[in-house]
């Protein structure tokens, strides 16, 4: 062995020694991942093939739970339908609104801190019990909203009277809590180098044109990140439907998360609920994979990516 190669192996070795220290830093997570994520995940996968209902014996039933979900469960497809509508309506509306506000706020305006905070406060209230009362009382037949609408000549709307309207009213709640997405967009907007938009301006581009040709493309990584996170959350949404409508009327707001919780903690069909949660996981996974696959076409990267590995 030559002296030179010996020294390079030494450097390599030292480098590897140093790099292995990284394991020390990620050790807490490694432990947490194994004990509090991987293990529960695998046991839930196992449970999904059993008739586990806590307390009683566990019997292996093969894929019976999965078959039952698709062939016998009277509300599975209803909850899937409701959840898909919710995801497709609430997420884009919320994000579009959040983006719109963020663009307006992204100016040197006085009092911007106040507006930013004001728009964020509804997100802070998130799952508070007062939301249940607020959203009920505001939207009842003779409630505040209908009264306001009445002043401008609009007939009272039965916000919770039909399954479709009730779901929409829940979507409004989601939209109202646009603050956290707005913050993410604001942050993204501040990342865009000023000289880019300035250059476009000098070239004589109009504001709308600058927005669509410069700002929006530069913002696509943020939009991508937001869409992924918000959609994953929306698929699992539980609180709003649980505290305001209890999934009704006639299962009109019976979100998948609510069904899952009820099967697990009200009906104690743990095996069944685990099967449901794995179906959800696979759907979310598929969605994410599709998003990633298509992201190359519409997400602009300087280098690497949002979820770059």
């Amino acid at each position, binding site marked *: 062995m030559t002296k030179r190669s010996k020294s390079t192996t030494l450097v390599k070795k030292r480098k590897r020694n140093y790099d292995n220290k990284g394991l020390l830093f990620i050790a807490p997570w490694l432990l947490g991942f194994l004990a509090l994520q991987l293990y529960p995940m695998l046991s839930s996968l196992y449970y999904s093939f059993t008739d586990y*209902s806590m307390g*009683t014996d566990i019997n292996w039933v093969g894929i019976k739970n999965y078959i039952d979900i698709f062939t016998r469960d009277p509300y599975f497809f209803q909850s899937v339908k409701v959840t898909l509508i919710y995801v497709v309506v609430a997420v884009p509306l919320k994000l579009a609104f959040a983006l719109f506000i963020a663009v307006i706020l992204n100016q040197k305006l006085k009092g911007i801190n106040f507006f930013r905070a004001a728009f964020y406060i509804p997100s802070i209230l998130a799952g508070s019990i007062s939301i249940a009362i607020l959203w009920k009382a505001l939207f009842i037949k003779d409630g505040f909203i209908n009264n306001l609408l009445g002043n401008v000549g609009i007939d009272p709307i*039965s916000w919770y*009277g039909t399954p479709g309207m009730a779901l929409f009213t829940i979507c409004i709640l989601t939209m109202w809590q646009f603050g956290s997405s707005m913050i993410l967009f604001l942050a993204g907007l501040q990342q865009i180098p000023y000289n880019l938009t300035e250059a476009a301006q000098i070239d004589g581009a109009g504001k709308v044109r600058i927005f669509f040709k410069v700002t929006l493309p530069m913002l696509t990584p943020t939009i991508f990140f937001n869409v992924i996170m918000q959609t994953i959350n929306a698929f699992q949404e539980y609180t709003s439907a649980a505290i305001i409508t209890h999934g009704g009327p*006639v299962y009109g707001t019976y979100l998948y998360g609510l069904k899952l919780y009820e099967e697990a*903690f*009200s*009906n104690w069909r743990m095996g069944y609920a685990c099967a449901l949660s794995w179906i959800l996981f696979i759907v979310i996974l598929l969605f994410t994979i599709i998003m990633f696959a298509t992201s190359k076409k519409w997400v602009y990267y300087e280098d690497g990516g949002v979820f770059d590995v």
Partner: protein
Amino acid sequence: MKKKILSVLCMCAMLFSLTACGAGSDEGSENSGSDDEITLRFSWWGGDSRHQATLDVIELYESKHPGIKIEAEYGGADGYKDKRMTEMAGKNAPDIMQIDAPWLYEMQTQFDAFADLSQFEDVLDMSGFDEDFVNSHCALDGTIYGLPTGINGTYMLMNTAILDAAGIDSAQEWTWDSLLEDGAKVHASDPEAYFLNLDQHSLTYHVLRPYIKQLTGEQFMNDDYTIGFTEEQLAEGLTYIKQLFDEGVMEPASESFMYIDAFYDNPIWVNNKVGADIDWTSSLSARMAGFADTAAVTKVPQMENAKDTGILVRPAQIMCISNTSEHQKEAAEFIDFFLNDEEAISILKLERSVPATEAARQQLTESGDLDEIVNSAVNLALENAGATENAISQDMQLENILTDAVENVGYGTASPEEIAKETYGLLEMKLEELKTK
């Protein structure tokens, strides 16, 4: 400077982890039970006034038994059952639990949750309780797992002011037909008022069930996991409910059904625009609070030639001891105090409906705490009680399927016959599933 901040941060983290460990070990000693102090966990649900009365009794008990500490785990009814069952699954249930009588079967068969109370007869006096009552509601296969906190019965509550205003004689005994006929008058005379106000749960439990049972005279569900009524009878019951909406006896479902389990928040209720409702006596005091002067009670409506009154009597709640408790005897002593002690009774009064022992009722009558209306409602139910329900008739999953049917009727998604057909199929399917379990 930065280093300082970091070290402060670390210190904080360590400090908090220490207090966390402190909290943890605290828990440990509680379970292992040191020699001088025993901690009993006691859980119940209720509203503010029940909480306060119960806490007062606990304080009294602790002052009389220096070695015992009772840790109160109380809250609202929402999610109470789910929470207890989660704990039972984790073998972590409170020593003493207030549960609803229909849960007993499910909790005991699934989790072997409760201790046999007869083994504590030397410290827990059960002589004051009606044996039949205890055996039919608090026992399974002859083993007693709980004691009733009070007697609960179904009844109809009327606000005579509303009925008078509509020219309805509130002194009559209602039939389902007369209710339909007179009921329409309330809304006709005052467009904001309705004769009957029930959410979908109550409508199912207090109208559909008694209606069908009066038709059949049988158990709602049979012990062999078959349905105790025919599809036609279900359709008849659902048709009746549809009529209640169509005739304006009840507020349209699109308004009233969003107050599921939130009865008291419905504007027509808070504005005193309701003529009557049907419910358990345990909540009677709260229900009539807004119109105590004009409140009157009567029997649940009957059908001509009814084969069963469909009127139910059962414990308001039952007090049980966890099978996993390490201090079952001490828990039994507490339950004895809670249900039999004169001072405890005078504090608890009617917080858990009319007490189940004759002695307690006597005591409250003498002290003037036994509300006349509540007492007469309980007596009405006792005198007219129908057959005691078997366990399977009280299954919540079956009940939910029926509630769905009532919701569908209310929103008019299909004809009662179609809904009955679909519901019947769902019930059969669920029964089959429950049977194999």
